[in-house]
């Protein structure tokens, strides 16, 4: 079984080719947010983009999502240039962005219904997803009645519901407290282990990036460039309790933090 996986994982899911992004901050001033980024993400990989705030890492994710067109360069999905958003790439945002007028079930069903799935089928599938993200019993709650962690669980279920091939996660746990964040990281890994979707995960937490990812793409502060790509070859499935005792896990974290320190760019939160 293993060689087969190795073969399929060589297929490029996302290709970012020489992408630069310029924002006009005022009439005369341009701000170079991303400079000449090239990156390949193979099918089934969990890749984190790690960098200080303002390094353009979220912008890179928005470009892959098709929400923001790049100033220069191209982003491709399975060899085809990305020209706009599509259900093959499912975003999960730090702000949750749930539909507040829909119940938990309504939110999760929204995508499948949009794509023409029958109500019964969409409902059954959505109820299963809601259970999978640990929210059984909250199907009829409105977003305003949920905590931040629960909202993000709903957002994840809502995105998984329309079966995107790639998950685009934009600092999804950034607005949560440390305890909730840890629990969601564990649960995300458990869910991911089941079908190993391709994930592009933006974060500013070194520990989070190392814990979750196959590869960590380190970025420099503005203009955002790729500083280094580090393969995190820790065994899977990963359990936090085991990793915390694993010296290699600690070494990865120390190594990455030192690299940011060296360039005076360490502004990470623990």
């Amino acid at each position: 079984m293993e060689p087969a996986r190795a073969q399929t994982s060589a297929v490029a899911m996302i290709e970012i080719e020489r992408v630069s992004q310029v924002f006009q901050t005022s009439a005369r001033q341009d701000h170079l947010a991303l400079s000449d980024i090239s990156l390949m993400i193979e099918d089934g990989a969990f890749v984190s983009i790690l960098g200080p705030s303002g390094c353009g890492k979220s912008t890179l994710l928005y470009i892959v999502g098709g929400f923001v067109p790049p100033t220069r360069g191209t982003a491709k999905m399975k060899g085809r240039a990305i020209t706009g958003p599509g259900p093959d790439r499912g975003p999960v945002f730090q702000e949750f962005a749930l539909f507040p007028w829909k119940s938990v079930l309504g939110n999760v069903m929204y995508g499948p219904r949009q794509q023409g799935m029958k109500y019964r089928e969409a409902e059954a599938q959505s109820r299963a997803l809601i259970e999978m993200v640990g929210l059984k019993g909250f199907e009829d709650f409105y977003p305003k009645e949920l905590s931040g962690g629960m909202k993000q669980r709903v957002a994840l279920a809502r995105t998984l519901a329309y079966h995107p091939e790639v998950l685009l996660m934009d600092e999804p746990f950034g607005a949560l407290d440390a305890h909730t964040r840890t629990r969601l990281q564990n649960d995300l890994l458990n869910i991911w282990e089941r079908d190993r979707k391709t994930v592009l995960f933006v974060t500013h937490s070194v520990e989070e990036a190392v814990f979750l990812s196959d590869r960590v793409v380190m970025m420099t502060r503005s203009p955002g460039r790729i500083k280094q790509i580090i393969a995190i070859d820790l065994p899977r499935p990963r359990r936090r309790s085991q990793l915390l005792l694993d010296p290699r896990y600690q070494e990865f974290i120390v190594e990455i933090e030192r690299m940011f320190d060296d360039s005076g760019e360490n502004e990470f939160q623990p």
Partner: protein
Amino acid sequence: MMRRAAPILACLGLLAIWQLASLASENDSFPTALEAIRAIPAILGDKDSLVNFGASLRRMAIGFGIAVAVSIPLGLMMGRSRMVASFFNPLLMVIYPVPKAALMPIIMLWLGVGDIAKTLVIFLGVSLPVIYHSFEGAKAVEEKMLWSGAAMGLSAARRMVSIVLPAALPEILTGCRTGLVLALITMITSEMIARQSGAGNILFNALDMGQYDTVFAMIIIVGAMGIGLDALFEKMRARLVRWSEPQLDVPLSFS
């Protein structure tokens, strides 16, 4: 208990002050509260005046309905498109501070004193707050919410109807509530200027003929209509936006 009784007590207090002030002033054109209240059944029992009320309410409903139907889409489009906003904003800025009743003489000149002119004034009065609140509501819709919809495959038009509209609904309904009160005000003022039929017509005819108890009775009736319509609308609004984050309660509420 106290909360429910408070508005009633306030009304009774107002009537008491009115009664005393009227008795003290001994002015023929200032009937007492009791005299005004006694005149109400006569008005409501009269077939002619009921026809007039019906005509008023019909114009108000039509003016309000068309205004809402036009203003919500326009406001939402302004809120989501900078081009549409920069086209309509200056126009609305000019119209906004003009009292809509002040346009009445010109409108009468063009359209006569009939239903169309009066309905148009009501339409103008209702439109602006509804456009403004729809505009603000649409502007405030979270970009990421629209992106989430786009990722699900919703077209721009579908996002407008299925995301922008419901997301902006609390703000839109706030505008509609203001619009409803303005509809009542413009309804009466339009009938005051173009006298022909309607509740305003009864009021000002009575004034001309010196029937001051009828005048004040009409003021009470129109006021009660305003309170009733507002309370009804507020009930509906609260039902429609149950899902919305708790907001500061609107202080002027009779529900």
